[in-house]
């Protein structure tokens, strides 16, 4: 590529503009965007899809008073030509009705009657019918030529700004109102029939033409199946269902469709969202659009002028104005919250609501994640423990604690807390999702409250919840919930009534909430049950083993001690050497520890250790206050160097427990100054009654 060939990029396709691009425009896009699609017949009155319509080749000679210049469009109803009226020198649109469709014997009469009515429609926003007639079997209308584009052409250039829609639609309303007052219904309002002249002024074309051919959807002959008059997406439901009872309110429905399309760039098909959810549009227009689009004509605006009034009121006042809501739509009429309080804020709540829903969702997810994380940690810990994987630090203790098989309050407290957090988190997320789709005001409120009180994400949740409550308290926000709810209820293509639909909605919300509560409940219950199942933990088993081993060691020490006895005079064995470094243990007591038949006449306690002990150190400690017998003299160290005695007076029937060295006090020490292992000497003295027999 030559240097300097990529100076700029085409805004259409984003590719580099060649240096020799004509007029600095991307040559590719010039052709692709203007010519690659099938050639459209554009501009002028209507551009319906081509049909089988054909005119005699020499039709032009039947219209000697016109100089036919250009074909502007051809469609189900006929052909439109741009023509010059030679005598007057004015440009007109000559519409020649489809000869095939005008064969009906009653057509001539109907044409006469309707065309007269149309010719009376003299309004700046309605394409004027100058003249009409029939020549050589061709029915024609001579109409004002509008030098401009149809609304369809304008829509093809991209979405129009709301201001444009707000300036056009009231004009259409005005013209429709005028025509309706003259008893003329358009029956085919759609962007193709709404023309804009070079100054951007709107004009309605093809008024009442649909009626010339009978009802739009009256089952057409099979051979003309393609020639259905009217455009399904713009037709009021009653135009399909009861074509005979169509009145001016059908036009109001079609206008609603056009309005919706202008605002959102989409058609209101199926279960559609209010315009303000689709585009940056004043949310107060929602009820206006939705009311124009009511399926039931009686629920709709009854006069086109009312639509205009509401729109102009909204355009003229800032968002959320003081005073009653200007649009007494089906939605707002049912909304008892509609009062006359001034809303605290004027801005569009769409983005705020979106942000709130995101925030609440995050808080909920945080809560859920915290609980699930803790739960997973506990389960993993217990699993490790049960599988015998070594754990460090405080973990084994926690694992054992978790699996404690005895009924314990703390575990239930923990499980309940977990359940509340989990269910709360779930409800917050549910509320946030309902808030996002404006489906449940109550769930949204609940989500805010829960977000404020649930601890793990409280830092984020508290301010968010407060803000949410303030936001949800706004009247315009409440109205949006109501409007969205109404639209979802009424626009659902369902056989059952709106009331059933409303109940279904409520049940749906309740069901979701129930799930969100039941699932954590089951989860926490099952986990708790599992934790305490399966008997003792590995830690516990290990503790038991350790205990047994200690016992065995003590026995071993005792045996070794007697061996030392035997070898006292002789050589010390390897075992003895090993044992020398071990602390001494109690190997014999009088009375025997645990004895329950000790005679009250016993006057002295005796303790023998496994090693030679120092003679001036001892600790006879009470196990608990009063568990030490009354001493009758000082303790004595016997000559074997290992035995101590303590003179005591025992009381019949009493139990005694004496620490021979306790954990805290360790007076008994061997010659290497190692304290003996603590030993609890406990026994029961027989009562005198038991002894006497």
């Amino acid at each position: 590529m030559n240097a300097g060939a990529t100076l700029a990029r085409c805004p259409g396709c984003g590719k580099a503009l060649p240096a020799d691009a004509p007029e600095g425009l991307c040559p590719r896009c010039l052709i692709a965007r203007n010519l690659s699609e099938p050639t459209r017949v554009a501009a002028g009155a209507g551009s319906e899809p081509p049909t089988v319509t054909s005119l005699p080749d020499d039709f032009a000679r039947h219209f000697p008073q016109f100089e036919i210049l250009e074909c502007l469009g051809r469609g189900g109803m006929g052909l439109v030509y741009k023509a010059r009226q030679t005598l007057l020198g004015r440009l007109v649109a000559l519409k020649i009705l489809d000869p095939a469709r005008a064969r009906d014997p009653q057509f001539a009469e109907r044409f006469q009657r309707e065309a007269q009515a149309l010719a009376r429609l003299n309004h700046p926003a309605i394409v004027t019918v100058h003249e009409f007639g029939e020549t050589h079997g061709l029915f024609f209308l001579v109409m004002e030529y509008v030098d401009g584009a149809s609304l369809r052409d304008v829509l093809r250039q991209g979405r129009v700004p709301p201001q444009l829609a707000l300036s056009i639609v009231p004009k259409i309303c005005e013209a429709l109102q005028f025509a309706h007052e003259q008893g003329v219904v358009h029956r085919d309002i759609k962007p193709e029939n709404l023309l804009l002249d070079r100054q951007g002024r709107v004009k309605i074309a093809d008024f009442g033409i649909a009626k010339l051919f009978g009802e739009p959807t009256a089952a057409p002959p099979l051979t003309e199946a393609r020639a259905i008059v009217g455009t399904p997406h713009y037709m009021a439901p009653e135009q399909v269902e009861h074509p005979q009872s169509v009145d001016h309110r059908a036009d109001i429905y079609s206008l609603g469709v056009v309005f919706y399309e202008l605002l959102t760039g989409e058609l209101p098909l199926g279960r559609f969202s209010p315009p303000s959810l689709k585009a940056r549009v004043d949310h107060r227009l929602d009820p206006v659009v939705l009311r124009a689009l009511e399926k039931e004509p009686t629920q709709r605006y009854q006069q086109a002028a009312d639509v205009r009034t509401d729109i102009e009121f909204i355009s003229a006042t800032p968002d959320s104005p003081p005073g009653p809501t200007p649009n007494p739509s089906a939605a707002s009429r049912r909304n008892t919250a509609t009062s006359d309080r001034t809303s605290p804020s004027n801005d569009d709540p769409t983005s705020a609501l979106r942000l709130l829903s995101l925030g609440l969702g995050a808080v909920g997810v945080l809560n859920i994640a915290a609980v699930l994380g803790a739960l997973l940690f506990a389960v993993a810990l217990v699993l490790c423990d049960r599988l015998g994987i070594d754990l460090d630090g405080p973990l084994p203790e926690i694992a054992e604690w978790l699996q404690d098989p005895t009924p314990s309050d703390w575990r239930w407290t923990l499980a309940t807390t977990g359940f509340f957090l989990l269910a709360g988190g779930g409800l917050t997320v549910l509320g946030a999702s309902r808030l996002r789709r404006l489906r449940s005001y109550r769930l949204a409120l609940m989500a805010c409250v829960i977000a404020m009180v649930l601890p793990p994400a409280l830092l984020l949740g508290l301010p968010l919840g407060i803000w949410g409550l303030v936001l949800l308290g706004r009247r315009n926000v409440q109205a949006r919930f109501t409007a969205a709810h109404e639209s979802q209820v009424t626009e659902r293509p369902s056989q059952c009534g709106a009331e059933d639909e409303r109940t279904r909605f409520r049940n749906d919300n309740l069901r979701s909430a129930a799930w969100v509560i039941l699932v954590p409940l089951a989860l926490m219950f099952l986990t708790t049950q599992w934790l305490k199942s399966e008997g003792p933990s590995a830690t516990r088993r290990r503790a038991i083993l350790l205990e047994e081993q200690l016992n065995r060691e003590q026995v071993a020490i005792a045996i070794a001690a007697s061996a030392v006895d035997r070898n006292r005079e002789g050589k010390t064995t390897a075992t003895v050497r090993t044992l020398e470094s071990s602390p001494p243990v109690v190997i014999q007591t009088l009375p025997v520890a645990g004895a329950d038949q000790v005679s009250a006449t016993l006057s002295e306690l005796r303790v023998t250790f496994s090693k030679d002990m120092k003679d001036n150190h001892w600790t006879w400690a009470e196990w608990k206050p009063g568990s030490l017998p009354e001493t009758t003299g000082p303790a004595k160290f016997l000559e074997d160097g290992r035995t101590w005695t303590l003179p005591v007076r025992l009381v019949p029937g009493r139990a005694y427990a004496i620490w021979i060295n306790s954990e805290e006090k360790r007076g008994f020490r061997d010659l290497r100054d190692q304290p003996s292992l603590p030993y609890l000497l406990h026994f029961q003295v027989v009562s005198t009654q038991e002894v006497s027999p």
Partner: protein
Amino acid sequence: MPSTEPPHAGERSGWFATTHWSVILSARDTASPKGAEALERLCRTYWYPLYAFARRTGAHPEDAQDATQSFFADLFRRGSLQQADPEKGRFRNFLLVAFKRFLANQNEHRHAQKRGGAGVQVTWDTDLAERRYQIEPHASWPAERAFERRWALTLLEQTLARLRSEWSVAGKAGEFDHLKGFLTVDREPPSYAAAAAALGVAEGALRVAVHRLRHRFRELFREEIGHTVARPDDIDDEIRHLLEILAE
């Protein structure tokens, strides 16, 4: 739209597009003044792609200019048009094939010119041609492809020039400059609102104006192509072909 109309309304209506190329084809046997005039107009418009082709095949600027001019002179004088096949029907094809043949036999043609070619002389600014040639991208392209691309661009230039002149005549040259950008985009940007503000019109009016501009562009472009094909039915084919060339 001319092409969608039945060709029955006669000259009165003016919507039956008589293409220059069809005039040439019908006139080729008689060498009528009308045919010569149509040919001259076409040559005047489409000389540059041939010049670029000659340059691309390695000719020096002077030689390329010489060859192109001789070719046209020869075309007018000798009635090379006899070779044109109305069934194939593309002026673009015809011109390229004839030019290639001419270049191949250039010596003979030079000689012919020296004998003194009578008829129409097509002249142009040589320097301008060379400057244009120098800024052409894709120097590595084959000459045929460069010719076709250049052809498509010439058609577009011609169309835009006519469009501009129409708007200038109506005293709206400034408006044209603001609006032409919308010809290559389907959606914003450029912003309709900004353009409307710049021109001091309502946005609705601006959108109507954009629509009219695109509509007129479409009409003129089809008309320009119509001059280079034998039948109106060929226009859509030719548009497709041009789009393919430019898409590469």
